[in-house]
């Protein structure tokens, strides 16, 4: 059984039919990426999985259990955490408080302190900024906060929405190295990216979305050499 199965979901914004029957699967231990142009439905797919949006049709199962029935704040208890688009750090909370909020779903004393130390090992910069308000950090540091915050929930599945958005190219490499590292430590990752080349370089498999539908689904290696993908998303003619 696949870890995550998204079966033919249709999600609407009001009357706008944003997802027209998306189906994807993610196996445990994989990095799977969703690529596609703006408005293709990548973010909407993640928001539907995390429960922020409810599909009108179709279902999302985690280890075979339907998670559409859960409210957004309950989904994290099932082991799904998300790094939202635009990072979404709590600007007026300190770095430490942001991480504490990430662990909100966990009982006090269940190793939260140790996990925080692990985050500081993964992102040493955050330890230097521990008491600072997250809103005063640079974009790259905020991305670290958002990623560490999601990991504090000890998710089995991590949803990441455009982690490279608005970051300097030099930082982007660092972010993708971190994603690989997180994955090697046992967290499955579903990654949405505009930067398709980077995403495919770390992913096992990928889906190409176009106007709310999956148009191509293949291994990352094959997608990198796929002509359509190269033309549309990799900038190679």
């Amino acid at each position: 059984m696949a870890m995550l199965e998204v079966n033919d979901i249709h999600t609407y914004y009001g009357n706008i039919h944003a997802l027209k029957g998306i189906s994807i699967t993610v196996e445990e231990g994989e990095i799977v990426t969703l690529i596609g142009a703006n408005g293709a439905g990548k973010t909407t797919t993640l928001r539907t999985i995390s429960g922020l949006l409810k599909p009108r049709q179709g279902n999302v199962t985690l280890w075979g259990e339907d998670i559409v029935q859960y409210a957004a704040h309950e989904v994290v208890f099932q082991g799904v955490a998300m790094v939202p688009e635009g990072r979404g750090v709590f600007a007026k909370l300190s770095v430490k408080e942001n991480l504490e909020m990430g662990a909100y779903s966990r009982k006090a004393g269940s190793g939260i302190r140790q996990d925080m130390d692990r985050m500081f090992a993964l992102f040493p910069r955050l330890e230097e900024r521990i008491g600072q308000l997250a809103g005063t950090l640079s974009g790259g540091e905020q991305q670290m906060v958002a990623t560490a915050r999601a990991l504090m929930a000890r998710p089995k599945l991590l949803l990441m929405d455009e982690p490279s958005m608005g970051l300097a190219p030099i930082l982007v490499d660092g972010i993708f190295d971190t994603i690989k590292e997180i994955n090697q430590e046992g967290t499955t990752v579903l990654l949405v990216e505009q930067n398709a080349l980077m995403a495919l370089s770390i992913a096992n498999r990928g889906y190409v979305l176009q106007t709310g539908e999956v148009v191509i689904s293949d291994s990352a290696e094959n997608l990198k050499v796929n002509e359509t993908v190269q033309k549309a998303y990799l900038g190679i003619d």
Partner: protein
Amino acid sequence: MLTRTLARLSWVDLILRVFQIIAAIVIVIGIVNVFRSNTYTSNQWATLVFAGLAQGSIYALIALGYTLVYGILLMINFAHGEVYMAGAFSTVFLAGYFSNTGFLQSSPILAIIIMIIFAAAVSTAIALLLERIAYRPLRNAPRLIPLITAIGASFTLQYTFRGLYGAEFKSYPQVPALSGTVNVIGFDVPLVQLVVFFAAVGLMIALYLYVERTKSGKAMRAVSEDKDVARLMGIDIDRVIVTTFALGGALAGAAGVFNGLFRPQGVFFFMGFFPGIKAFTAAVLGGIGNIPGAMIGGLMLGLIESLGPNSIVEGLGIPSANQLKDAIAFSVLVLILIYRPQGIFGERLAEKKA
């Protein structure tokens, strides 16, 4: 450079600026006149300051209810004055009972603590009912609609209490243990004012620590920043909203008892209206949505109201200045809304609307 600035200045700005300068001059003239004529002794001024602080701390407690709810829902709960009234009004009966049985005289501290808990419980219950019945169904409605509902709920509560207990004034019993005066840095201050002030400040500190230090307090701040991201953390938004209303209600109930100790008369169904609007003024003065702002705003408004008539209005030769307390409080509201709508500590409102 200067011409560009001038070109951007509209005639409305100009009039407002002129008005601001005139207001400042009038205030200065009033103050100078009063102090030159030496009408009041320093003892009298001290009396006004302490009365203002006690009254202000009551405003601050009520103002916190407005500010907490606004911080989470971006909504002004205009029925909050009635939440305060409900606690103050209900506890009048308990206080009377305690006084008749001699409990209030024999163990005043315990009696007052029980009264505060009772008032807080009643106000919390009313606040939660309001949230559940009047506001939750309208959570996604345009912002004007819950505002109108709040006014309707306000009348409903007022006339429910009028229907239940009649329209006449009731009053809290005198507490003999609080009737003396205490010498503070050379001034005689009524004990009740000090007790009210320090008890209110104690509650404010407790609230501040709750919001800053506890897990649910931090969750509350997270929700006020970004509801969707807060949900992704596993925070149940509805529970946070209910907690917010409960806290605001409890503080308003406590304020009701403090008001009863400080000023025993005047308990009736309409008693929440003026303190409600004044506490709203205090919350706006401090910057709505800002918790320390509501505390400071409340104390400042209490002081302005207490000192204003004698220090400014009287100096302008206006008779019976003390009756203009309310006028001063509401002038403050109008002036802030015109010149500094974000309040003392607040950020620009537009930023939070998104």
